[in-house]
Every structure is written in structure tokens, then in C-alpha cells.
């Protein structure tokens, strides 16, 4: 009986969340600005209210469920980024998980140091990210003037530019951090910077910087590697994920970060992720990706996926287009990592092993390659189904039973792929993610001055067009 109740309540939960997502996207897709804003506030408030909702011992969102929700939000971000790279740009990447890990560690380190009275993390990372961005811009301007620089030479220029920027950031950041030290005060007499409010400012900054950090690393990595063909690119990105994980395992020995504690895992990260921040960053990511995809640059990205040679012949800079999608996708992954680190409070290199890196890939394919709606829905559904529904349900059958979810869910995947090979939603979009509908201003197309000339000249074939004009949807 208890199982049945649980079955019922989790089904309601999953369906409710999916409905919530579709409602959010629908509201964001409305034209007037106040309706969009209202939707955002309402969508935020509904979940926030449910967090505190409790009747007797029944809680709609238990602490466990809240954890799942944060996990789903991060997964949605990472998967959205991956869909941009793989679904929209056609580059099969396994590096997404590595960028996610970089973002997690980077932002965790910033807030960890801050909570321990050291502004150095924030200053060095912030300064480094900004200076490296400037360096990339300068090198790019320089290379644009010089024609025909091979990719690897360009890479070397960028590498040295970024290294110089990082060096400056460290040299400038350290004395600045020392100067800030008195402002933190001691444990007994906390200084002004120790106030909790500052941590609330440092946290979103650290997440943004983590995203930018992941984006810059992906720029440097993608520049030479994206010129490889798709399969070779896939293998190279797998290599990247493994390198990142190895660096994490050895972060306290070969890297100078003792607070990350290498393979033992980083503990003591302040749990700063609230529903407010998670939701705010989710909306930010959704808007970023959607605005990118539904623009001329986004269409160019799609063109590269469809046919590289034709895209080149249409005046599209294929190499830049690929790099842009890759960098943007990694930026989003870095942000997801930052949110994750501050919700879980503990980072272990095992979390970022490349095997787990297939999770976002599964979500993207499951939801539909090239469907942003499908990705967000699949991310929520997947987490709640696998980690919530199956784990707890099976948990009631015995202590070993939860492991069976890794049998049950691949079977679900198999079935879905057999029944709907293009994913749950294919490429269809909903609400906010939909392309704006093109409306014609002029009803009769040939009334214009120019048009008459066309009508007078032997008109281009019109009969051929007829069969399809009839069944236009």
C-alpha cells in the first residue's frame, strides 16, 4: 500500500514538473514583456512554495526531491549546451562533462577560499578570465590581419596570449588578495567582507567566471581539434574529459590546489545554491541558447551541421561557427558545474569520469537532437525517473535492488530508441523555443513594380511548383 502511494505521488511529481516546464516555456514565448516576467515570477514561486508545503508527515518536495530538482536544473543546462554543440552544430562531443567539471571545481574554489577569508580565488579567477578574454580578442585581431596562418600556429599565439594573461592575473591578484586580508577579520572579530551578504554576491560571480573559464579552455582546446573530422573530434573530446578527470585526481599534487584534496574529493564547499539562484541561472541559460539559435548566427550553425561545403559556399565561416557553438556550449556547462558544486557541497573526481559524461548525451538524444524543449524536459524527466522514482521504488524491495535501475533504464532507452529513433520530441519545439512564425506583409506578391517585370518575362517554371503548393501545411 505504501508502495502504491509512493508510485502515485512520484508519477504526479514527474508529470507536474514536465507540465511546469512546458508552462514556463509557453509563458516565455508570449509576446508582451509583462507576460514573460509574470511567467518567470510565477514559475519560480510555484516551486518555492512547494518547497515549504507540508501536510502532517507528507511533504511534496522532500529534501531528497529538492536535491533532485537542483540536479535536474544542472543537467538541463549541461544538456542544453551539448545539444547546441551536437544537435545544432553536428559536432559529436564527449568533452561537455569535462567542462562541467572544470566549472564545478573553478567556482567551488572561489567561494571556498572566500569563506575561508581569502579573496585571492575570486580576484585571480576573475582577473584571469577577463584578461584572457582580452588576450583572445587581441590575438584574433592580430591574426585577422595576417592571412593564411595555419591552425596550429594560431593556437600557439592564443596559448601564449592566454598564458601571459594568467601570469599577469596571478602576479596582480596575489598582492591584492593580501591587501584584502585584514577586511575579513578573524574568527572572533569578523571583518566587513565576512558578512554573509558578500558570499551571496561572490557566488553568482564565481558561477559566471566558472562558465567563462570553461569557455576559454574550450576555445583553446576546440581551435585545433575542431578542424578534425567529426569522429576524430569525438575521440579527441573523450581524451579531454579523461585529462580533466586525471587533473582533478591529482589537483593537490601536480596542481597547486591543496584545498581540492585530489582524489579524496573537495569538502567544505558552502551550500549556496538556493532555488532562486538555480532558477535564475536556468532562465539565463535558456534565454542565451534560444536567442543564439534563433538568429542568423544560429542558422549558420545549423547550415554547418547540414552541409559544410555548401555552408562555405554560402559565405559562412565554418571554422568560426563550429568554435562559437562549442565555446557557448562549454560556457553553459561551466555554469551548470558551478550550480552543482554549491548544491552538493562536495566534489569528487569520480563524479566527472567520462562514463558519467554519457548522461547528458543520453538526455540530448532521448529528448530529441536539435530540440531544446525535448532536452529540458528529458533532463528533468530523466533525473526524476532514474534517481527519484526507480531508486526509491526499488529501494523498498531490498538493499541491493536500487542497482537494478541501471538495468531498467537502459531497457527503457532501448525501447524508446526502437519506437522513436529521433528522440521523444524529434526536432519539434514548444513555446519560447519555437522559431518565430514568418508573416507576410504583402498578400499578393507580384503587385510590386519589380514583380511586373517578372510576369512579363517568360515566368520561371510554375507548373513544377504546383504539386506541393496544394498540400502546404
Amino acid at each position, binding site marked *: 500500500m505504501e508502495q502504491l502511494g509512493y508510485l502515485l505521488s512520484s508519477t504526479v511529481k514527474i508529470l507536474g514538473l514536465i507540465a511546469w516546464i512546458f508552462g514556463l516555456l509557453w509563458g516565455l514565448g508570449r509576446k508582451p514583456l509583462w507576460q514573460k516576467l509574470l511567467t518567470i515570477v510565477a514559475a519560480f514561486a510555484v516551486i518555492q512554495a512547494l518547497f515549504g508545503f507540508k501536510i502532517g508527515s507528507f511533504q511534496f518536495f522532500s529534501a531528497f526531491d529538492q536535491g533532485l530538482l537542483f540536479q535536474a536544473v544542472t543537467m538541463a543546462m549541461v544538456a542544453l549546451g551539448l545539444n547546441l554543440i551536437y544537435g545544432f552544430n553536428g559536432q559529436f562531443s564527449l568533452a561537455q562533462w569535462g567542462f562541467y567539471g572544470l566549472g564545478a571545481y573553478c567556482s567551488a574554489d572561489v567561494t571556498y577560499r572566500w569563506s575561508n577569508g581569502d579573496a585571492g580565488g575570486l580576484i585571480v579567477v576573475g582577473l584571469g578570465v577577463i584578461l584572457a578574454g582580452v588576450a583572445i580578442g587581441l590575438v584574433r585581431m592580430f591574426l585577422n590581419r595576417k592571412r593564411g596562418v595555419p591552425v596550429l600556429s594560431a593556437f600557439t599565439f592564443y596559448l601564449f596570449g592566454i598564458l601571459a594573461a594568467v601570469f599577469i592575473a596571478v602576479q596582480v591578484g596575489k598582492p591584492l588578495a593580501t591587501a584584502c586580508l585584514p577586511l575579513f577579520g578573524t574568527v572572533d572579530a569578523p571583518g566587513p567582507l565576512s558578512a554573509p551578504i558578500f558570499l551571496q554576491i561572490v557566488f553568482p560571480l564565481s558561477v559566471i567566471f566558472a562558465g567563462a573559464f570553461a569557455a576559454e579552455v574550450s576555445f583553446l582546446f576546440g581551435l585545433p581539434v575542431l578542424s578534425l573530422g567529426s569522429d576524430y573530434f569525438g575521440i579527441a573530446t573523450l581524451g579531454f574529459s579523461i585529462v580533466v578527470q586525471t587533473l582533478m585526481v591529482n589537483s593537490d599534487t601536480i596542481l597547486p590546489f591543496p584545498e581540492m584534496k585530489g582524489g579524496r574529493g573537495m569538502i567544505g564547499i558552502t551550500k549556496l545554491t538556493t532555488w532562486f539562484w538555480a532558477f535564475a541561472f536556468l532562465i539565463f541559460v535558456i534565454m542565451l541558447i534560444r536567442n543564439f539559435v534563433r538568429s542568423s548566427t544560429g542558422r*549558420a550553425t*545549423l547550415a554547418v551541421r547540414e552541409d559544410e561545403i555548401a555552408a*562555405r559556399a*554560402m*559565405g559562412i565561416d565554418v571554422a568560426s561557427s563550429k568554435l562559437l557553438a562549442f565555446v557557448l556550449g562549454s560556457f553553459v556547462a561551466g555554469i551548470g558545474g558551478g550550480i552543482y558544486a554549491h548544491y552538493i557541497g562536495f566534489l569528487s573526481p569520480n563524479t566527472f569520469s567520462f562514463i558519467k559524461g554519457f548522461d547528458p548525451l543520453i538526455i540530448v538524444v532521448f529528448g530529441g537532437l536539435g530540440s531544446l524543449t525535448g532536452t529540458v524536459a528529458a533532463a528533468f524527466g530523466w533525473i526524476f525517473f532514474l534517481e527519484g522514482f526507480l531508486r526509491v521504488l526499488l529501494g523498498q524491495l531490498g538493499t541491493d535492488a536500487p542497482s537494478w535501475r541501471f538495468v531498467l533504464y537502459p531497457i527503457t532507452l532501448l525501447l524508446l530508441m526502437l519506437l522513436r529513433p529521433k528522440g521523444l520530441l524529434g526536432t519539434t519545439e514548444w513555446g519560447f523555443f519555437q522559431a518565430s512564425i514568418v508573416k507576410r506583409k504583402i498578400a499578393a506578391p507580384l503587385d510590386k513594380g519589380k514583380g511586373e517585370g517578372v510576369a512579363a518575362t517568360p515566368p520561371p*517554371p510554375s507548373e513544377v511548383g504546383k*504539386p506541393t503548393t496544394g498540400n502546404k501545411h
Partner: protein
Amino acid sequence: MADMNGDQIILDVKQATKAFGGLLAVNGLDLRLPKRALQGLIGPNGAGKTTAFNLITGIIPLTNGAVEFKGERVDGLEPFEITRLGIARTFQNIRLFSNLSVLDNVRIAYHAHAGYGLVDSILRSRRFTEKEAELTEKALDFLDIFKLADIADETARNLPYGQQRRVEIARALACNPALLLLDEPAAGMNPREILELMELIHFIRDRFELTILLIEHQMRVVMGICEYLTVMDFGEVIARGTPREIQENQTVVEAYLGKGAGKSAAS
């Protein structure tokens, strides 16, 4: 050859050579196109015609020689840069963005002239809204000209063959070129479609003041619309002249039908 001296030369290919290992796919090709010319490049299969197109558009680099467009060298530039300078092309085997709509196919060609950048699109600035609407309107007008406006929302893949060809030509023209390269535009078309295609080619040349170079196997098209022909065989130019001159050229007949074919009554 009279028209080649007075008029402005828009494309000048000088001794273009491409070697794939030991094979000279194109050997010392010279090609001059005056403004608003409609010329043909013909030859048997494997003569190096498509390779010549790929050399002009920069898809494969030259081994030797030079390509000048409007008096400036374009060889060594990236294909997308060459397109932005004003050379557009279609492909022998149609290369549409097949999962995208007809409208998007044309809008993609406008990308280089979109007039707004990445920051505009992410912030949805006023410039984005205006330019995007303008671009879409322009693309739709364009589709009107080609009688494709009714199927603007159709996925390119689902169109019949003849229409796909027209979408491809429309898309190439949306790049705003001065020179259009058509690679076998009549391939796989039935006689009526070929007739319509010939009208279309004449029409776009007048409407957009284009210079057109086309590769074609259908002699009806070549002889019907081209003013001047260059014949290639095994990577080399074997003849040049007006369609009439070419038809009577012994070397050309031999290249197509084999030695002695011209004399033999059986052929």
C-alpha cells in the same frame, strides 16, 4: 572573341593547374569572363570541369596559376571569403540544407549581410529585431521572384527535384554575387524542366545583371543559351569558340565520341 577585349573582365583564370599526386586534373586552364557573359564549360566525364569550379571558389587550393576576380587575386582565400566577394555557385549533386525550410535556406545565404552581430541576437536588441525582419522580408521577396514563396515553410528535403534545383539557384543568388557558377543545373531534369531552366537562367542574368559560367552535359542547354564555350578534356582546354564553331570542331567530336568518329557514317 570581340567581346573579350572591350568589356571589363570579371573573372580571369590564368594557367590554373591542379595536380592530385601525379594526375593533372586541371592543367594550365585559361578562362576569361567579361561582365554579363553567359559562358559554358563542357567536356567529357572526368575532364576536370568541376575541379575547375572548385579551384575558382577556393574549395580546393591551386597547385599553380592564379584566379583574378574583378582584377584582384582571390586564389588562396577561404571559400567563404570568395563567396562574400561575389562568386556564388550551385553543386552538381544538389547540396541544400535539407532538414531546414526553404526560407531558412535562403536566409542562411544572407548571413554575411545580416547586419547584426552575436551580441545583438543574444540581447535581442532593436537592431536585431529590425534587421531580422528586413532580412526575412528580403528573403521572401526573393522566393516570390522564383515562385517559391508558397513553399517557404516546406522542408527542403521534401521538395521535388526540379524545385530543389531552383531553391539552390535562389540560395546562390541570395549571396548577392556578381558571378554565378552553375554545375550541371539541368542534370536529371525532364525536357520541360530543361526548357524552364533555360528561361530561368536567361531571366536571372537580366534581372540580377550577372555573369554566368555553367558546366553542362545537356547539349540542348549548352548550345541553346551559351554565347561562348570552353571545351576541356583530360584537364586541358582542347577548344574554344561559339557553340556553332564548337559543334564543327573535329577535336571536340573526337574527345566526345572517340577518334575517327567524325568521319565514320555510323556515328
